[in-house]
């Protein structure tokens, strides 16, 4: 028990997240309401205007998230259920951050090479597999995808300088 608590470090409570998320959703709803009003949200002679439905949708978003916000604010002091512990959140970041960098990589050098790097590095450093095994799996997946999409199905995926070198 001691170890678990030490390991956990800091944590964020569910109610805190509830408040934040409800507030964000409320803001989103407000934006939708404003934009719909701008577009015209009346019921004309031919039926509703373009902004009619989005207006009420936005309104309902604001109302429902507003209720959740108030409910959560009332529970802010009492409830202690944990949303995520620091160690858990770190684990989530272990894939989320590389995944984001991966997508950035796709943007600039195509999909096949970043896929190889992403899988290989993840297996090596997060999964603690040997460098050889990681490289093999990464290469296999990348190569199969390449054959499947570029050669066989002829569905163009983002490509970069490496693929240009081999004539694709």
């Amino acid at each position, binding site marked *: 028990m001691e170890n678990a608590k030490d390991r956990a470090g800091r944590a964020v409570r569910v109610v805190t*997240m509830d408040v934040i998320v409800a507030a964000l959703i409320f803001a989103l709803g407000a934006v939708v309401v404003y934009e719909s009003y701008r577009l015209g949200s009346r019921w*004309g002679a*031919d*039926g509703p205007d373009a902004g009619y439905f989005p207006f009420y949708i936005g309104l309902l978003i604001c109302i429902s998230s507003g209720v959740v916000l108030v409910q959560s604010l009332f529970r802010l002091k009492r409830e202690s259920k944990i949303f995520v512990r620091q160690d858990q959140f770190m684990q989530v970041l272990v894939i*989320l951050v*590389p995944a*984001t960098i*991966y997508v950035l990589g796709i943007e600039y050098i195509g999909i096949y090479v970043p896929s190889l790097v992403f899988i290989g590095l993840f297996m090596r450093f997060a999964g603690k597999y040997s460098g050889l095994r990681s490289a093999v799996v990464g290469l296999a997946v990348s190569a199969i*995808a390449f054959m499947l999409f570029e050669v066989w199905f002829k569905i163009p995926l983002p490509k970069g300088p490496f693929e240009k070198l081999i004539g694709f």
Partner: protein
Amino acid sequence: MEELNALFHGFSVVLTPHNLLLMFVGITLGVIIGVLPGLGGANGVAILLPLTFTMSPTSAIIMLSCIYWGALFGGAITSILFNIPGEPWSVATTFDGYPMAQQGRAGEALTGAFTSSFVGALVAVLLFTFLAPLIANFALQFGPPEFFSVYLLTFCSFIGTGKGNPFKILAAMMLGFAMAAVGIDIITGGLRLTFGFTELLSGFHFLVAVIGLFGIGEILLSMEEGLSFSGHTAKINPKIVLETWAKLPRYWATSLRSCIIGCWMGIIPGGATPASFMSYGVARKASRNGDKFGTGQLEGVVAPETAAHAAGTSALLPMITLGIPGSPTAAVLLGGLLIWGLQPGPLLFVEQKDFVWGLIASMYLGNIAGLIVVLTMVPFFAAILRVPFPIIAPIIVVICAIGAYTVKNNMFDVWMMVAFGAIGYVFKKLDYPLAPMVLALVLGDAAESSFRQAMLISQGDLTVFWSNWLVGSLTTLALALLVWPLFAALLARLTAPSGTRGAST
């Protein structure tokens, strides 16, 4: 009967070694396409259409329809194993299929899904064989008011007995509608909610949202417990198919109901997706174990899969008899027909008997062949889950990225996928339900445009939704389904014996 004769003639056309080979090739290709999220049955058929130009029309349509079946089956595989719906109509399968896989019952879920799909498609094909002209006429009666009432019915049947904070459910659903509204407004042609971002011109595509929310979101959730988390221990049990088959007859009522829902949803261009949601919602309301749906009930897999495949198959019917495709994939097949110089319509049955009955025969055989192929591979599929998480997690991310990109050849969608992944992670932990949000995203646009078209026709008069027996009964049924849970709860409280009431106060 004349139809049976024609059918047997059709079988004789199909059962040549050449065509049988094409069938198996088609099914295998279809499964691969169905498994890759984002590729979609319609895309797959479209891509492989040119391959068939060198074949005779009969052989070509046989192979293409088998690709179609394969894709239908394949969509269920990733839904159950990884919570990533490979096709839009597989979303509802994830609700109970994925929990089952997480409990080590992947083989059971897969078998249940494939068998239900087979049953649904078979019933639809039987309908096809004997009732083709009748059903075709029915499809013609659907105009905008009828379409809207169908979508309303889908929503009302799905929402209802949801547990949890009703305001969170409402917020999630409204967010889905808001996302559906982004982009070009169909009626006026103007831009809505794009805020000057050109990337948002085509709005949020449902598949990108789903891949992110369900697929990436699930990976983020699984990462919390760290990478010592090894693959699900699904035992490779070759007898799993037989064991599951023993359990399935229990759900014959669900199956029948889902077939009916699927068949008539497929005939109207409503599609397999609303059919699967509606069937799931109705099954949840009607079943004794309704409140356990979502935790891994086999029935929760049977219902949507039967309906989705019945609908997917019936979608071919208006295509052939009327030239009205009931689904995007049927639209591509229609294109193929036209390329081969075949004119869809009632005359097709008369002038091109070989072709039509060959197609119908291939639907029976393709379905059976498909079932055999996927069932033999169930233990193998289930074994994929045993691959350790550190290996499979990045691979899934890669597959999701490919899927998100291929939807519209757009990098923006891949970024959206990551964003939706984070949203899915947070929403799941805070109990904001994803299912209503996804349903709203899928149907929101179509529902709104059919509503506004109906209004244009009736010039703002809401009573158009009760203007004829068809639309009136659908609308009333929809509203009834909506208020039923409230009514039932009220009834239960009023008729509770006084003893229990005393105890609770």
